[in-house]
């Protein structure tokens, strides 16, 4: 996986043309709510389980 592939996949998923430039102050105030973190952890655990076919 290259940096370009990673960025490309993220932009494709979010239907964006380029990476947004966000204000640090906004982000630093941002707390990740429990339900979002729970969703993230669940996906992380499931991704170790799901096996895509690869190339």
């Amino acid at each position, binding site marked *: *996986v290259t940096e370009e592939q990673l960025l490309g996949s993220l932009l494709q*998923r979010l239907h964006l043309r380029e990476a947004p430039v966000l204000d640090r102050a906004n*982000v630093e105030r941002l707390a990740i709510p429990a339900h979002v973190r729970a*969703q993230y952890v669940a996906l992380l655990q499931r991704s170790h389980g799901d096996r*895509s076919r690869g190339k």
Partner: protein
Amino acid sequence: RFSQNFREVAGRFLVSEADRHLLVFGMEQRLPPNSELVQAVLRLFQEPVPKAALHRLSPRSTRALVTIEWLRVRDDGSNRTSLIDSRLVSLHESGWKTFDVTEAVNFWQQLGRPRQPLLLQVSVQREHPGPQPSSAHKLVRFAWQGTPGAGHGEPQLELHALDLEDYGAQGDCDSEAPVTKGTRCCRQEMYIDLQGMKWAENWVLEPPGFLAYECVGTCQQPPDPLTSKWPFLGPRQCIASEMASLPVIVSIQEGGRTRPQVVSLPNMRVQKCSCASDGAPMPRRLEP
């Protein structure tokens, strides 16, 4: 039958309707564990058609279509077939006819029931379906249709497999040993530091980085006679055969507010490296 490194299996003739035959091959221990099936060939011996019958043939019907299907018998007794191979055979010819049944053996492997035999249904049809009557295809006879147990010309299954001890990957690389030209295909740690990427700043909140892994090393190539038999196969390469997705948390700006969102990125982490040939058919998945 004639070579040490080809495994052949003699089959048994089970039942026959006019132009449909069911073959049974015992498969137990035919394919060693940790081996990769590269090709399976079904060999049927076509008997010569009696000359008198040949003379009565109309010029339009000198060939017949032989079709091989894999027969799957479910636990509830129902069964279904999958088309595996078919080819035209000439009524004027006789001898061994070969069919590629690799996919049937792949399906049998996916069943995960080594003691269950491989069932192949052979049907012989007219070359040209259509309203005009023709029974020329009934003249196609295979050796097993003669006296049972005669022992000659029984259907045979050739299995060509590579031992993955020699031709496969070795799992994860030895982190102590440097990767050299002689290193066998393996999965090597590769960490992607998202915090070091300018575009991710203030945008990707989690993870700060992740182990993506990569496949390195080389694969041993099959011996020459094998490759000459499969000209369409490229060299065996070390590739990522199983991938996993990567969830990330990004900050999204909507209506003047910033909120976190989880996104899953497919095929971002290598789970397994394997040796595979470019051009090798990807086995169809068995439907549940």
